[in-house]
């Protein structure tokens, strides 16, 4: 497992990273390395230059800003999982970060890397999508905020330009909304076969919900049919039955496409049930 040859630079600041990135051609940012390095070792990725942003500690934070929680892109999964601010106000993020891979992965991998990698099997993209979160990218021209709904564009593809650095992720406080991240994975260290992120508004019942699906297509997906049905008054069972509508999930060693569709329906029902139980009171969790 030896990568092809590459050059390596350490970024001293975000600005330095942007400078080193140049136009971004053949260059990759290195954060926790837990998606990029395996791909390089299998020689599936062959960047000519790695710009290491892993030491930019000023991008590792979780902050309360009014009704929003701001998370620095370099925050490690384990720090996201144990953040008091997230556990209090947006426990779906901390809970899910605590269920990414295994302890080694959580101590190295970063929330920014998880999102910027654009892997449809990753957990945090669905959560940020269900929360209507925002991703802040910085380039030579300054910052721009990208809504989660526009960020994920394809398998390993995002709206980030090659010369941009993802610096911050912004999510709303959940307030009285209920939440669930329901994941099925074979082993602790595996990506989800299928997972469902649900954020439910209501008081022990579902008035309105945001539902996002992990590993059900080229990107994380909103289960719009489910969301519409719920707004229209459908029961959880009836709404969840629509979870796979319009999806084209992959067939791989973990599951066939059809089985993934089945799992999406079952896990959506379970996620909505759990989220609705948690709604209407200020849920602590994680």
């Amino acid at each position, binding site marked *: 497992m030896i990568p092809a040859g590459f050059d390596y630079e350490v970024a001293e600041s975000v600005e330095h990273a942007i400078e080193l990135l140049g136009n971004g051609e053949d260059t990759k940012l290195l954060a926790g390395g837990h998606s990029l390095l395996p791909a390089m070792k299998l020689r599936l990725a062959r960047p000519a230059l790695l710009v290491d942003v892993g030491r930019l500690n000023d991008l590792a934070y979780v902050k309360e800003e009014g009704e929003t929680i701001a998370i620095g892109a370099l925050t490690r999964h384990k720090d996201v999982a144990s953040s008091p601010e997230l556990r209090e106000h947006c426990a779906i993020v901390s809970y899910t970060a605590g269920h990414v891979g295994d302890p080694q992965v959580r101590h190295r991998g970063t929330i920014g890397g998880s999102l910027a990698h654009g892997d449809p099997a990753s957990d945090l993209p669905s959560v940020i999508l269900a929360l209507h979160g925002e991703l802040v990218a910085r380039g030579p021209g300054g910052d721009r905020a990208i809504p989660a709904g526009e960020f994920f564009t394809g398998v390993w593809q995002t709206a980030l330009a090659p010369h941009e650095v993802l610096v911050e992720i912004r999510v709303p406080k959940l307030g009285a909304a209920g939440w669930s991240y329901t994941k*099925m994975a074979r082993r602790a260290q595996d990506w989800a076969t299928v997972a469902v992120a649900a954020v439910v508004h209501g008081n022990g019942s579902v008035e309105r919900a945001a539902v996002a699906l992990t590993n059900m297509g080229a990107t994380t997906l909103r289960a719009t049919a489910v969301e519409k049905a719920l707004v229209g008054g459908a029961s959880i069972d009836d709404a969840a039955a629509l979870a796979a509508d319009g999806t084209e999930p992959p067939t791989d*060693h973990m*599951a066939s496409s059809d089985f993934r569709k089945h*799992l999406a329906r079952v896990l959506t029902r379970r996620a909505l049930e759990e989220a609705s139980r948690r709604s209407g009171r200020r849920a602590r969790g994680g």
Partner: protein
Amino acid sequence: MAVAETATETFVGTSVKRKEDASLLRGRGTYVDNLTLPATAYMAIVRSPYPRARITSVNLDAARAAEGVVSAFSGTDLADDWKGGLPCAWPVTEDIKMPPHYPLATDEARYQGDGVAVVVAESRALAKDAAELVGVEYEPLPSIAGVERALEEGAPLVHEDVGTNECYVWKLETDDFSAALDAADVVVTRRYFQPRLIPSAIEPRAVVAQVGPTGDVTIWSATQIPHILRFATQLVLGIPESKIRVIAPDVGGGFGSKVEVYAEDQLAVTLARRLGRPVKWTEERAEAHVATIHGRDVVHELTFAATNDGTITAVKSEAWCAMGAYLQLVTPGVPLLGAWIYSGPYAIPNYSVTFTGVFTNTTPTDAYRGAGRPEATYVLERTMDALARELEMDPIELRQKNFVKEFPYTMASGLTIDAGDYDATLGRLLELLDLDAIRADQAARRESDDPRQIGVGFSTYNEMCGLAPSRILGAIRYAVGGWDAATVRFQPLGSVQVVVGTSPHGQGHETTFAQIVADQLGVDVDDVEVLHGDTASSQQGMDTYGSRSLAVGGIALWNAGEKIIGKARKIVAHQLEVAEDDLDYANGTFTVKGSPDRTMGIREAAFAAHAAHDLPDGMEPGLEQTAVFDPPNFSWPAGAHAAVVEVDTETGDTRLVRYVAVDDVGTAVNPMIIDGQVHGGVTQGIAAALFEEGAYDEEGNLLTTTMATYLVPSAAELPSYETDRIETRADNPLGVKGVGETGTIAAAPAVINAVVDALSHLGVTDVGLPATPERVWKAIEEVRT
């Protein structure tokens, strides 16, 4: 005289901490990859991406011109260096097809991963980079992966000159077998597929080869078989064994995958001779998935004939076993290692077993933990449950009814089990299990239509190990013997060196063998040093596999110790001026019968033996003895295992909740090490039941090429195991049987029987291996619709 103290403790039967761990657990072991000799060159292999392809040309120019490259070769370039192919030591029938197999392919690549060229460079990374520049022109050819389809008319042939994919047919049947089948009240036949398993030792394979000034060769290899590798290297390269030294330093697991004469070891020697530099190769993890042997890949049809009261009268097994593209060291013989135990621990008088070996365009298979016996036990124990359902009998009662009750017992297959107590093993299991509580929970969940159902499954197995009586090996066409050798050497000041012919790679022999000798010679366990894994120190042995090291090598060791005591007795008798018969020996001390104060320690005798001032006339100085032990019989561990699973019937997700194992491995030398072996073995069996599957598409493209797709379970997926033992003494001086493979043999059928039990109320009778969520869900869907 400053001799070592007499030990007051005894060690056999106690959990002495592993001597190995002080270095291994601190990362201070020395594995082959830790060795770097001056001027080492590194090797990288170019492998076929196709399951089958004609090699039209190999262009090495760009690779040779690349940075740091020493040289590059195709198979044709090196062909003259090979005096013979990579050996297969087990031609199981007279008319077996044994196509040639050289370290690199020359005309045709026959599986994905088959080596076609080799590059040598100044570093491992440069070698790998240059290997990408080798231009091989391939003409892809039709190929085949599944054993059943490979035998169909018109299937692509793996070896065109052989003319068939059928490698051999081997059969063992008792007289009047068909009559017994015809006379049965009930006949149950079931079909099973046991997929490929990729051994996945933590340490991948590695080799360093160095050629000395006189043409002598030293090979450091991550191998289980230094002695056999030395022998094979003469066959492949024509170098006399006397000039070859093979060293297996610390070896990080093998599970059979390192009982092998691999292309890379022979290539490293070939290139070290050509280049005059040490040559090193360390396997990459993804490379191991194609280049190291696989296990299993067997289709079975198993039939039981029984009377209405549940007495099994006959067993018949037909199996189609994948060889892969070539025959490795014992590839064709692996099924035979199970051939005599298709009656398991049961008294079944009529017996028929047939194996068909089949070539496919896949990585060669060979021995993987249990080798042949997990295959047999799986189909047997699954079919026991099927027969119980057919007879509407409790599966435990069916097992108890058919157990062998009296020992020694000669099975229909012809071999004799020396000792066991199958009722006691199962009895102890049931005590630990609390089956009533499990059944009550199961009934409640069924009643409430809980989506999470539970089930319990059993596996009562026996195992033939302690490989092996040389005469029997000869009779079944294995090329060499099954004995082993050990030397015990008293140093002048009373410490003891032991040299063994077995070759541990994680088992803890430095500890267990020291325990045995310490008790026998009355010395402290820390005063016994066990040397192994170097053909320069242990002149000959048959190495480590098949749970043989203790049951065969341990007996050789014991016998050598007895010879030491015998010689010391002569010295003591001479010096105390008594007859040998007048001496009692216990715990390192000789005492004159009737005169408890007239004693002499064995360490004093050792010093006297080395000083040689006053020895009996004609006696050679020194106190060192060697014994070679050829076992008269196999050894026969047995046990009863139970698995409890919870199945999410909506998602098919299946989790193991409890695993209880009661084994009889004979005398327990070190209970902690036994538990370790049972835990590891059980985990590999569970892995085969629920997680691991080496999958090919129909053409022979491997789909599980990395550890992200080949699912080796971790502790997070497994419960704590509950283990216990009963001990019946094997018919050998130590009473030991062997424990290396028991868990792997027992676990898979127990787990799948539990999954089927959890779903039996829905009508499910079978779930394929491994029981993935999707397979479980489909099994439920099939009976629902």
